[in-house]
């Protein structure tokens, strides 16, 4: 083995140390707080989420105060309330010593719901949205990184704009935590099963999950800083560039302008956004490894990364080929923009609106479903899982000719276990089963067939824009209260993936189920007697 090149104590290393310290600090802070009597993982998570999000309220209140905005007082007050509520909840809770998987799932889901509640509260308190359902769906879009909104961004105060952007950025950071701590238990989408395959043993990035987290987080933070500078250099005002960097790297998609990135009318800015979205859809451990050794060949070696780029390339070429006009530099840029925006589930829009041909539309929809690479902050079903599904179909075809063939599914150099395979398939089917009723609901609630289907897919994958009559962002406006609730649900499901949500819901439902079963059994016994 060649000796490792020494890691230089440079800006990246400093950043890494800083992030690790912040993470450890906040962790131990929470741990010092929760010394209560009630042993509940969900309670502690809810409290922790509230305690840690309250500073965001204060920060944004400060921003708004400096900007002379109208929202600094409500933000301050709601921040105080959230902080107090969080402290109160944490004070009485204690983290259990052992945690079964189902409890872990419930904790994650309740953490997400806590964040949802806090952000909804902020929206209601500032009067950004008056109706509860609208506030809920806005909050869901914020914490899941979906660019779906009913509000014109230019009518918001700077405090609220930055609140929403930071919300998207932080929730993607939280996803990194989930990625490291929770998804390995699921066997899919996390570092352990397929993320590990993609980058070859990413699970061994660091000996402890805490330091893995710190490393990934430092990549995330560093990239955000880099892209803020890049936007600035490309000619964006500095406030906008910070906010756009936050929502680009988190694959969120909220913008400061109502026309999204396109309203800057600048090719350079769009290219920066394209690059940023591409990075947001790329696996974080892969980038960490490549950066640490300055070894770009790692990207080439990753099967998933090749598929990811290949898909983008194919869709761009197809979109250009199917459009009626001869491709120009601008139209190529718009095609690449739309494609990366869909696959990284960011949801930005470029200035070339309304030029997507029908075939391109269908392909973009497929890309939305596919989503970014596994172990990235992007939403969607993940490239890796689709590659696994493709291999699965191939194996079944082979089996129908050669009856007793035993095929193990390989991706790159490692093989996928049957359990992980079943999880992936189960996840896909469950998501489809959730999707169909919601499409029905959307269609009943004011969208056309095309709009309902594409918007459901778009919110399940946390993209934001969708097709149909309301193209690109009018879907939430044409939906009613029920549709807003369904969209909230879909976005949450898309972000934390369906199995944890259903298991957590089952955690509530299981006692009821047990009671019913017992009652039925006793009834049958009576009949037998």
């Amino acid at each position: 083995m060649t000796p490792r090149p020494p890691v230089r104590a440079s800006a990246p290393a400093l950043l890494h140390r800083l992030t690790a310290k912040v993470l450890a600090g906040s962790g131990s802070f929470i741990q010092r707080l929760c010394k209560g009597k009630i042993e509940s993982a969900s309670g502690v998570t809810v409290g922790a989420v509230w305690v840690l999000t309250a500073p965001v309220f204060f920060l944004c209140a400060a921003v708004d105060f400096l900007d002379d905005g109208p929202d600094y007082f409500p933000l301050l007050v709601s921040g105080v309330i959230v902080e107090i509520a969080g402290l109160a909840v944490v004070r009485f809770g204690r983290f259990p010593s052992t945690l079964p998987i189902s409890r872990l799932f419930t904790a994650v889901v309740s953490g997400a719901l806590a964040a949802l509640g806090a952000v909804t509260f902020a929206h209601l308190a500032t009067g950004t949205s008056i109706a509860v359902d609208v506030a809920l769906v806005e909050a869901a879009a914020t914490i899941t990184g979906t660019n779906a909104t009913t509000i014109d961004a230019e009518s918001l105060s700077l405090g609220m704009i930055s609140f929403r952007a930071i919300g998207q950025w932080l929730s993607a950071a939280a996803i990194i935590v989930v990625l490291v701590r929770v998804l390995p238990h699921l066997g899919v989408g996390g570092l352990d099963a397929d993320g590990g395959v993609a980058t070859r043993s990413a699970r061994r990035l660091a000996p402890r999950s805490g330091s893995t987290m710190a490393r990934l987080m430092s990549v995330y933070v560093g990239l955000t800083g880099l892209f803020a500078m890049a936007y600035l250099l490309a000619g964006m005002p500095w406030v906008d560039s910070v906010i756009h960097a936050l929502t680009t790297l988190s694959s969120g998609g909220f913008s400061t302008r109502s026309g999204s990135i396109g309203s800057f009318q600048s090719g350079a800015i769009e290219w920066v956004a394209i690059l940023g979205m591409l990075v947001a859809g790329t696996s974080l451990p892969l980038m960490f490894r490549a950066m640490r050794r300055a070894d770009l060949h790692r990207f080439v070696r990753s099967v998933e990364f090749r598929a990811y780029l290949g898909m983008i390339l194919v869709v761009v070429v197809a979109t250009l080929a199917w459009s009626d006009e001869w491709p120009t530099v601008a139209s190529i840029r718009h095609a690449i923009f739309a494609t990366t925006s869909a696959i990284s589930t960011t949801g930005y829009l470029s200035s070339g609106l309304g030029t997507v041909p029908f075939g391109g539309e269908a392909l973009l929809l497929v890309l939305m479903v596919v989503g970014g690479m596994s172990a990235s902050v992007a939403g969607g079903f993940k490239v890796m899982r689709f590659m696994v599904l493709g291999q699965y179909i191939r194996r079944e075809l082979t089996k129908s000719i050669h009856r007793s063939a035993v095929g193990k599914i390989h991706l790159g150099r490692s093989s996928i276990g049957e359990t992980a395979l079943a999880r992936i398939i189960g996840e896909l089917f469950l998501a489809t089963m959730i999707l169909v009723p919601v499409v029905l609901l959307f269609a009943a609630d004011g969208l056309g067939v095309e709009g309902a289907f594409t918007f459901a897919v778009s919110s399940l994958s946390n993209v934001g824009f969708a097709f149909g009559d309301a193209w690109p962002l009018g879907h939430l406006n044409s939906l009613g209260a029920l549709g807003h609730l369904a969209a909230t649900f879909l976005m949450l499901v898309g972000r934390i993936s369906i199995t944890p949500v259903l298991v957590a819901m089952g955690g509530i439902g299981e006692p009821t189920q047990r009671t019913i079963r017992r009652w039925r059994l006793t009834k049958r016994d009576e009949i037998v007697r």
Partner: protein
Amino acid sequence: MLISSVVAAVDGGGAGFDLLVSALITASIGCVLFYGSTVSPTADSALAFASVAWSWVAVSVAGALPFLLTGVIPWVRFDDALFESISGFTCTGSTILSDFTSVPQGLLFFRSMIQWFGGMGLIVLAVAVLPALGIGGLELIASESPGPTADRLSLKVRDTARRLWLLYGLLTGLISVALFFAGMSIFDAVTHAFTTVATGGYSTYGDSIAHFDSFLVEAVLIVGMLYCGASFSTHWHAATAGLGAYRRVSEIRWYLWMIFSAFVLLVLVNTGELDWVDNLRDSLFYAVSLGTSTGFGTSDYIAWMPSAQVALLVLMLVGGMSGSTAGGMKVLRLQVVFRYAFRELLRARHPKAVIPIRMGRTTIEEQVAAKVVGFVLLYLGLVVIGGITLAGLGVDPVTAFSGSVSALGNAGPALGEAGPTSNFLVFPRIGRVVLMSLMLFGRLEVFPAMLMLVASFRGLSQIRRRRG
């Protein structure tokens, strides 16, 4: 074709001679091929699939001849004739004819007839051949209903076929008599009975069943479609062993529940849009017509609410029961997929639990479940690929994707521009070729069609090697 030419002669439409000519051409080519080739004694399963699949293609090509010879479809549009023929033999019912009045009666009869024959071949395929070969988990049919499925294919397939055809023929007779008494002419009654039994959906009128505007006719057709969309092996079993046979099959419960809930949903959605008699009538008719992948039409559902259309699309996707002439993904597979997904949910909660997948009272083997899942994935993948291709050819996405679903599920009408009162000329010419291949893929349960291509390529390369 001979029968059709007789009908044409009786009708005096002048198409009799052309049909006769095409019959002769087909017969002679068939004879030449039959005597010119020898059956290789060692046929592996890929070859078996290939022969089944190619015979479907060959029959469809022959079926295209009468449309061309009678001049209904000009020779330059030979692909349209092929489309019509494939749509017939695969029991799909998508049509590219727009003006039905100028089409001679003999040809209309022929059109319904090919669906009937398609259904006849299909029923043996669905009940006996495919389950025995274990395509996409269809061997599950045998697990619940001990009907006339062939355990050992070569021994029993002829016997099974005879029984099934008896049932099939009886049903056709019954439905045509019922339709006649419901007020149709003899010609209409027979042709519609043909396409009902085959769950095909060709009608002799441009506006399909709406032409008759008779509640009785619709009632007869609803009952007929519902019966024919269910498993024929269960029907046979019920006919010999009493009606209790139906109760033992869980698939039938799912099938009826699915159609019923779709009906309720449609009624709810259409309340306020249509007056309540029309609402009940049309909702029930469409729930059954698309839930069995027949595709008869009474009114234009394109004018319905969007959510009603989404519900219809889901029905088209799922289709009827396995072991019937209905298309789609089949209720059986939906059942397995549901159980599979819920098992994964339970496993996520209890990671070490061993949970079998049950269907009704029987337990399904792991391998069979894997086959079913593979099939469903491939099926959905094909829908998406078809939809993208059609959209790429410039069809609007709703029409493209629903057309893809409809063709692969052998339903007939689609959403968007290709609704029940429209025809498939809205698709571009290459798009219709895509649809044709989707129909064949759907009809042959996808896997054999895939293997047909594999086996054919293998055969071609063998021939090349022998020459070179």
